[in-house]
């Protein structure tokens, strides 16, 4: 059964707590839209769609800093792209476990985007967090799935 909001929250919390040793607090969309990094992984197979995570520049830098063990202001653009991509990849791997098999993950795609606007609709599950005050949103969008 495809993951509901609470399962998506659990996966996000699990990955960020384990990998980044950071605490996430569930939250609502912030009032402003701000620039940020977006990491995207396509999932294709019996279930098709994509997982994206979007976070503020500050949070992306902090995450990269943790993974590369350098201060956030010392990370390069490449470091941040790699870090956000790997986080999206690991999250997708864990989400894939909750989807009807078989399916494959694409390599992650990372680009400059925004975080703040809500995009939830029938086909998109969306969960919001703050991490040390910075916004993070994870979305799972379905394109096609087996009839239930």
């Amino acid at each position: 059964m495809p993951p509901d909001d609470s399962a998506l929250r659990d996966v996000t919390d699990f990955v960020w707590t384990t990998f980044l040793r950071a605490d996430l607090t569930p939250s609502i969309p912030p009032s402003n839209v701000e620039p940020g990094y977006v990491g995207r992984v396509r999932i294709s197979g019996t279930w098709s769609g994509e997982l994206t995570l979007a976070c503020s520049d500050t949070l992306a830098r902090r995450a990269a800093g943790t993974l590369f063990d350098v201060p956030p202001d010392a990370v390069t653009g490449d470091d941040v792209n790699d870090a956000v991509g790997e986080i999206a990849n690991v999250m997708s791997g864990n989400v894939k476990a909750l989807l009807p098999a078989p399916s494959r993950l694409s390599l992650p795609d990372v680009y400059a985007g925004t975080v703040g606007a809500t995009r939830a609709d029938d086909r998109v599950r969306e969960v919001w967090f703050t991490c040390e005050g910075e916004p993070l949103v994870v979305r799972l969008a379905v394109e096609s799935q087996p009839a239930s």
Partner: protein
Amino acid sequence: MTLNYVRNLVRQRAGIVLDEGKDYLIESRLATVAHEMGLASIEDVIARARTPANTNVESRVVEALTTNETTFFRDMYPFEALRETVIPQLMKARAATRTLRIWSAASSTGQEPYSIAMTLREHFPELKSWRVRILATDLAEGILDRAKLGRYRQIEVNRGLPASLLVKYFTRDGNDWVISPELRAMVDFSAFNLVTDMARYPACDIAFVRNVLIYFDLPTKQAVLRRVREVLAPDGVLFLGGTEGTTLDDVYERVVADKAAFYRPRKSAR
């Protein structure tokens, strides 16, 4: 902030004394409960627990403070000693009765008794035709219910468990892994209080009393260990946690084998 309310609660419900030296334990465990309950501080948890209607919050606090974090094949070497030395010796000694009784006291979420079961199944298939009892006991019903399910999260099966045993004895379900029915059937779970149930300690050939004695003051710890000696077979073995000792040299003899230490009852009169 005084933690006396919590100390008294735990003493009342579990017979366990958490003195000032254990403040760090109380604070860190309650911080986890706060996080799980979505509360801002441990003071909030305590306030909730004190509210007369909230008996389930009280139970949760007691469980958080009396439950051990445990992993599969914790510390590794005791299970090697079980495999290389202890089981082979006991199988010879029990060849006539073909009965083996193992007690995992303070089994928490079940990784320890299931690790014992995996060791037996993997290395001693002959035991299938024996009467082997693995009795797993713990204080808290909630924890026992979890252990009975035999369902573990990815992070839990990643720890200490050889991948070959994971694929052999577990089935994946989402991001969880569930122990096989065959292995689950090898373990009996039962609620038990090491302090108040002293009259009922089970007779056994092997006792695992690991990482639970830290909760007790010295007199209680010694009483527990003396009582275990009484129910342990004369040629039986006691396993303690990695850094624990008995402080009872007159009652137990320490043996080192396969990089692990374990304890045999001394042959002198009780």
